């Protein structure tokens, strides 16, 4: 059930775009208004989220136990896993962002006969996750050829490299294959591993179905239900130069489906788990040097506490204390 609703939602989004373009002729809505709105929501939403996280005080450093902390000189410190310097933290962040180092430690836990609890290495999630994120990034960069008049050389080089197998025409992109395979793996994983299935929510399935929908619609448009790419570029170029216009014999419905799903993803992004794109940089266990023993970290929310000293107490009750025979410091 938790997977069904997101699946139906994505199907409805696809149908909305098809009906909107084919039946209602809302090309301008789906081709201009919604993409602009989605881009604005994405930009403003992510900034809002990151700023709101930035306003949360981080009173202390969270030491992680995956590496030896800096201690006595003859004990070797794990400089990357448990850094005390900015350089160490930056290295840790780079490894985290580009290579998903934390995920590399992923283990699978099994209860075997006995009963015996056993742990084993499980790199598949890391591999699929890394492939998915990298190919998604490369595909995004590759799409810049639709958004730039003189396509930058690095983008052209990337496209050359991506299609160098020269399979079919239009040339098959290696990233397309890896991307769809990785997303499919990440989806099937949620269905087949009982523990993962148990904790998977609609908010986990929806982005997967949506991204799979984007990938499938893109692949369909490039390799199967082809559309006029020049028309597509005329539209995208008109969008980025703020003079939006739908070309006269513009792109086919499949393009609007693809675009609408992407718009949905962008608009959904800041309000969902996908915003971990910004969040990873603000992870306290990753971005803080473990220097609690060297630097004093004062709680940022400490306010001046109203205190009542013994001196003041004695001033208040001196006479009564004397009468009761209690010794006082000042007469």
């Amino acid at each position, binding site marked *: 059930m938790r997977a069904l609703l997101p699946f139906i939602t994505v199907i409805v989004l696809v149908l909305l775009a098809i009906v909107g373009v084919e039946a209602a002729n809302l090309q301008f809505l789906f081709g201009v208004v919604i993409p602009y709105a989605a881009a604005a929501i*994405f930009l403003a939403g992510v*900034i809002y989220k990151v700023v709101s996280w930035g306003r949360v005080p981080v009173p202390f450093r969270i030491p992680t136990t995956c590496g030896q902390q800096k201690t006595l000189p003859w004990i070797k410190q794990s400089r990357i896993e448990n850094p005390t310097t900015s350089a160490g933290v930056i290295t840790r962040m780079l490894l985290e962002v580009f290579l998903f180092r934390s995920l590399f430690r992923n283990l699978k836990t099994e209860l075997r006969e006995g009963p015996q609890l056993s742990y084993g290495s499980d790199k598949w999630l890391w591999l699929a996750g890394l492939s998915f994120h990298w190919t998604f990034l490369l595909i995004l960069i590759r799409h*810049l050829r639709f958004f730039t008049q003189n396509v930058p050389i690095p983008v052209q080089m990337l496209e050359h490299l991506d299609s160098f197998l020269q399979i079919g025409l239009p040339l098959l992109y290696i990233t397309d294959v890896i991307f769809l395979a990785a997303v499919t793996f990440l989806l099937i994983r949620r269905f087949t591993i009982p523990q993962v299935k148990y904790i998977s929510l609609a908010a986990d399935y929806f982005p997967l179905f949506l991204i799979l929908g984007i990938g499938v619609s893109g692949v369909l448009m490039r390799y199967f239900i082809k559309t006029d790419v020049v028309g597509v570029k005329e539209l995208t170029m008109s969008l*980025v130069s703020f003079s939006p216009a739908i070309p006269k*014999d513009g792109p086919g419905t499949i393009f609007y489906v693809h675009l609408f799903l992407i718009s949905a993803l962008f608009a959904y992004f800041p309000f969902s788990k996908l915003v971990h794109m910004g969040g990873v940089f603000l992870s306290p266990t990753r971005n803080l040097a473990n220097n609690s023993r060297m630097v004093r970290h004062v709680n940022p929310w400490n306010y001046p506490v109203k205190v009542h000293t013994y001196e003041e107490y004695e001033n208040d009750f001196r006479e009564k204390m004397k009468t009761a025979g209690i010794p006082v410091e000042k007469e």
Partner: protein
Amino acid sequence: MYNGGKIILGLAVFAGLVTFPFLYNIGQADRQPDLKLDTPVIRQMAVKHCVEPKAFMRAEHMQLLNDWRNEALRQGNREYVSSTGEKYNISLQNTCLHCHSNKKKFCDECHNYMAVHPYCFDCHLQPKENVQ
């Protein structure tokens, strides 16, 4: 905000990347492809038509060329029957480029616009207009 400097720097980079397509094209002339069909052969045609209808050719020409390559070179079949039942000789040089002898103003217009680099002319001879 805590660590405001670093966070704002990060957000500035993010905003720069997101708005890159908008910023990159500022001041660049909007150059749309301008195909020319006025070659001597096309001018002499009574009914101007390609091997398949225009809409099909626009979207599928690369697929058609790939199929033609496979038919001619791998199957040895040099005859193509179009959707309208007409027979054509499968040949890039003698059929396609016979009419479209203006590669620069025909092929290259869109390919340059879309930044695609077909590898047709890695093997085939370029039309004479380009050989200088």
